[in-house]
């Protein structure tokens, strides 16, 4: 690598959306040489062919262990070091594990050049996790609504209630049992299946 040129960064991530978010962030920050690998087959051969300066991998990826093979002496390639080897910055190591990302850096790349890459990575991973949570919440809210609507229908039919009365009954039962209204609705659906 030319010491002052933009380091070549490989992102190993099976989530295309997260990789895209990270890649965009890196490009905006002026890191132009970014390659995303989403296919884990022959991972090491691809990495050797790309010869990157920095490798970023999400911690949910079992192929992280494959990368550890790069430390083996028998390989005649540049040997990367793991971010965790440098204990001088415990806070950023902790932050990266919390965010769910790990970095491998080829020996010789200056520390002050790594820091902005890792910081950006951490903030983008956290942003993605937040998005994912919101999406999951929205999805489960939608699921709940469907379940509640069906439970309301059952109550209306069996007990001759209006829609509003059926909802009030669900809600008061949920409060009394200290459960979510969606859970009560689900148990009504289950019970009605069983009693069919």
């Amino acid at each position: 690598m030319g010491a002052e040129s933009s380091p070549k960064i490989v992102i190993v991530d099976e989530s295309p959306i997260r990789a895209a978010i990270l890649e965009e962030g890196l490009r905006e920050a002026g890191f132009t040489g970014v390659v995303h690998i989403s296919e884990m087959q022959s991972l090491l051969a691809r990495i050797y062919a790309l010869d990157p300066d920095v490798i970023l991998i999400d911690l949910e990826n079992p192929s992280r262990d494959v990368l550890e093979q790069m430390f083996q002496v028998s390989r005649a390639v540049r040997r990367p070091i793991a971010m965790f080897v440098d204990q001088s910055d415990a806070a950023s190591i902790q932050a990266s594990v919390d965010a769910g990302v790990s970095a491998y850096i080829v020996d010789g790349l200056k520390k002050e050049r790594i820091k902005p890459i890792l910081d950006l990575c951490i903030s983008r991973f956290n942003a993605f996790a937040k998005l994912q949570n919101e999406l999951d919440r929205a999805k489960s809210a939608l699921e709940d609504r469907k379940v509640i609507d069906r439970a309301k229908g059952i109550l209306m039919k069996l007990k001759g209630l209006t829609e509003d009365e059926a909802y009030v009954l669900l809600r008061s039962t949920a409060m009394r049992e200290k459960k979510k209204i969606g859970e009560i609705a689900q148990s009504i659906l289950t019970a009605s299946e069983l009693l069919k």
Partner: protein
Amino acid sequence: MTGPLHIGFIPLVDAAALIVAVDKGFAAAEGLDVTLVREVSWSNVRDKLNIGLFDAAHLLAPVAIASSLGLGHVKVPIAAPFNLGLNGNAITVSPALHADIMSEISGDPFDPMATALALARVVAKRRKSGAEPLTFGMTFPFSTHNYQLRFWMAAGGVDPDEDVRLVVLPPPYMVESLASGHVDAFCVGAPWNSVAVDLGVGHILHLVADILVRAVEKVLAVRQDWSEKNPDVVAALVRAAFRAAEFIEQPHNRAEAARILAQPERIGVDAEVIQRTLDGRLKISPDGIMREGNRYLLVGREGAARPDPVQAAWLYAQMVRWGQASISPEALKAAMGVFRPDLYDAALGRQAKPTEPSGAIGAFAGPAFDANDIAGHLAAFKIGHRPS
């Protein structure tokens, strides 16, 4: 007695004592509040243990040693007060490689020397015909699987660094990689060998017990400084794991143990496959041939759970043999110091001593292991890394 503990594990049958200790209530009975955290890679387990996100972990024994020596990674001294299992790995080969080895073999196909010599002939033929070198999958550079594969093939004259390719594969990808032809063989723990056989894509060639009579596999690992600050917690953990190991080793408990382990948030494979492993009844070929391996996986019986520093020395010797570590008396001492029979004895007293003497490794090739003369021991092997 203590705050909640977070303990990492990889979904493998040799995490049995740890998982059963928690899910069957042996840990709670010791006053421990344990949350088990399922992990996807050994690197994650190691790093999370190192930085304190985990209080303890199910860990590859060689990773505990490498971490303590600072090999290839940050140096964090580890203490291993309990062996979670001995043996338990197997070497599985593709149907094509199995046929090639069987056509070259002379002698008993369960004899590892016979298969290793046959492998050497297969390798030589492939080289002559210009075929790609064979590729073997294993789980981690610092793994028993790596050393067991190397020990076996080198005994037959195959140089693992020159004649074949060894690649790291995460255990859940092993079977798929064998089926797709990405690898020709692999060495991995349970249940993956049986899964490959059941799917018809592999033959179990050897149980590791064919290669080494007593091979330390996974340990219960804690940071050394943490163990010094929390001796009572360490002792309670050891007792809970020991009770769990005793429970698992009772044949009438195996079905229940297998059900606990099969849970989706634990190992997440069929209970029947897990029970086959615990019972040592293995289907070794897709056409249904069975093999009884009463030493397939030892969870606590025969004193298997008590750490033996000679086993740590043997693993360190393998690191030296294959160029991962340099040889020094200090490193040997540090490696042996990872295995802590003293902590085990302090927790359990004399009740759980092994039935076999220390140092019973029982390798099928080479001289008996001598922890006091590693250089001399390694000199007896033709193939290996020679320090310049």
